[in-house]
């Protein structure tokens, strides 16, 4: 009986290990669909489209947008569309490593790879001569940027850097993530409950390896915030947090507010938004969008742009 029980356990464990889903071709990750910024980087990535800015262009504010876990540049497509036609500032849409491509590439990526994509674009723009580089980050990109601040990445920046965090995650709403180290290897992957059409822009199948990476990142940044750190003199930060975020627990805002201070030792700017969406600035494909949701989005886009000049 004991042997049978042990065999069953081993079967469950090993049947889960290494199990990959059959990703449909019309889903992101299936090997056919990829993020548009991979095919047309010149339309998304500023270091590709304007590697040699003129003196006037170099002085224009740049906003590097960074998306969340399992997402793609689509998450900031509405901000791009909203900004279309204006000439006062420039946008660079970063695609995090492992994202927007194939399931296997995602599975093999780590949070350090995700972060490296943000650093690489910032460094390229800085080297190209851009003087006013800022960030608009959503969800998982927020802890990636917080970790960059903590490690002193911006300490030597010669100009002001403004960082806007939309619905940052430090604590996930789904507390099962805290057990991914135990149950993840058995499960192999997790399917997300996405809305119709989102499968083309968000990974529907999430490898447990990447969920472990996410948990690892959150632990690192939570511990950094727990010890406390300050923004460098030249860095400004504002957090926008949905009060009823169903994905990134709203208590994440408490941890950031308590753990991070300005260079002067004062609290950072933080605004709790009356919304029940995660990444409330992305409304495309979200069902039942209200007028209040649109107002929140517009307010935040305007607020970000107003602060970069």
């Amino acid at each position, binding site marked *: 009986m004991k042997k049978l029980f042990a065999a069953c356990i081993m079967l469950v464990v090993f049947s889960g290990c290494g199990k990959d889903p059959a990703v449909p071709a019309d889903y992101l990750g299936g090997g056919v669909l990829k993020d548009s910024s991979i095919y047309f980087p010149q339309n998304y990535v500023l270091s590709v489209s304007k590697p040699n800015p003129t003196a006037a262009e170099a002085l224009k504010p740049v906003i590097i947008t960074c998306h969340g876990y399992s997402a793609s540049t689509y998450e900031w497509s509405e901000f791009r569309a909203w900004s279309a036609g204006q000439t006062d500032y420039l946008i660079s849409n970063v695609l995090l490593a492992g994202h927007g491509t194939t399931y296997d590439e995602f599975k093999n990526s780590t949070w350090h790879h995700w972060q490296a994509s943000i650093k690489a674009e910032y460094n390229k723009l800085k080297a190209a001569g851009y003087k006013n580089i800022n960030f608009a980050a959503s969800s998982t990109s927020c802890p990636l940027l917080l970790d960059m601040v903590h490690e002193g990445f911006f300490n030597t920046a010669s100009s002001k850097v403004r960082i806007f965090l939309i619905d940052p995650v430090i*604590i996930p*709403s*789904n*507390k*099962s*993530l*805290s*057990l991914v*180290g135990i149950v993840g290897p058995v499960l192999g992957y997790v399917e997300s409950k996405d809305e119709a059409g989102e499968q083309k822009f968000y990974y529907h199948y999430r490898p447990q390896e990447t969920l472990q990476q996410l*948990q690892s990142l*959150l*632990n690192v940044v939570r511990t950094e*915030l*727990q*010890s*406390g750190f300050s923004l460098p003199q030249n860095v400004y930060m504002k957090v926008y947090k949905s*009060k*009823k*975020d*169903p994905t990134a*627990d*709203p*208590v*994440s*805002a*408490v*941890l950031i*507010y*308590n*753990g991070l201070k300005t260079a002067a030792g004062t609290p950072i700017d*933080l605004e*709790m938004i009356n919304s029940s969406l995660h990444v409330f600035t992305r409304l495309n494909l979200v069902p039942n969008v209200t007028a209040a949701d649109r107002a929140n989005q517009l307010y935040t886009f305007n607020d970000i742009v107003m602060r970069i000049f």
Partner: protein
Amino acid sequence: MKKLHLICLCVCCAYVTPAQQPILDVGLRLQQTINLYNENGFSIAWSPAKKRHDKLYLGFSYATSRLGSAFHSNAIKQDNLLVSGAWFLRRNHIIRPFGRINTGLFNASYGNKLFDDLPSKSLLLSPDVGISFETNHPLKIATSFGYNLITGDGLSGPGTLFPAYYQLTLSWNIYQPRGNNKEAAAIKKKW
């Protein structure tokens, strides 16, 4: 004078017949939530003198991040008040498995009015199973793994109420005399 003799007799009887005494374990509770905070506090557990002696334990414990992760840090200050009922197996053995049901209250303090809209209180309900190490001394070491059946998602419950935790309790039976207790020693030699 007779009364005094009677009291002395009762006390002496109580000392030489340890199995007839209730047990009152008082001690420290050290708790670690998986992928979150360390929360410490105290624990009290009582077992009746006669029926279900040393098998049924009723307890009260308090664990807080104030004495753990939030001590001199920016971690959220949160408190867990628990009452529990436990059943211990293998009486008179050194290693004793046990199961326990806990219920109580959870409260988190966010420290700023900005967060007044966020849920901060919750009921607690968790089973835990573990092993207790007991010697012939009043010292008892119990470790267990627990699972909160009620967790918080930040919408209907506090976001720092996580599911899984493990804990270590170091307790002292204040009714058991220290030093030579030959009768107790004779009973509790089995592993």
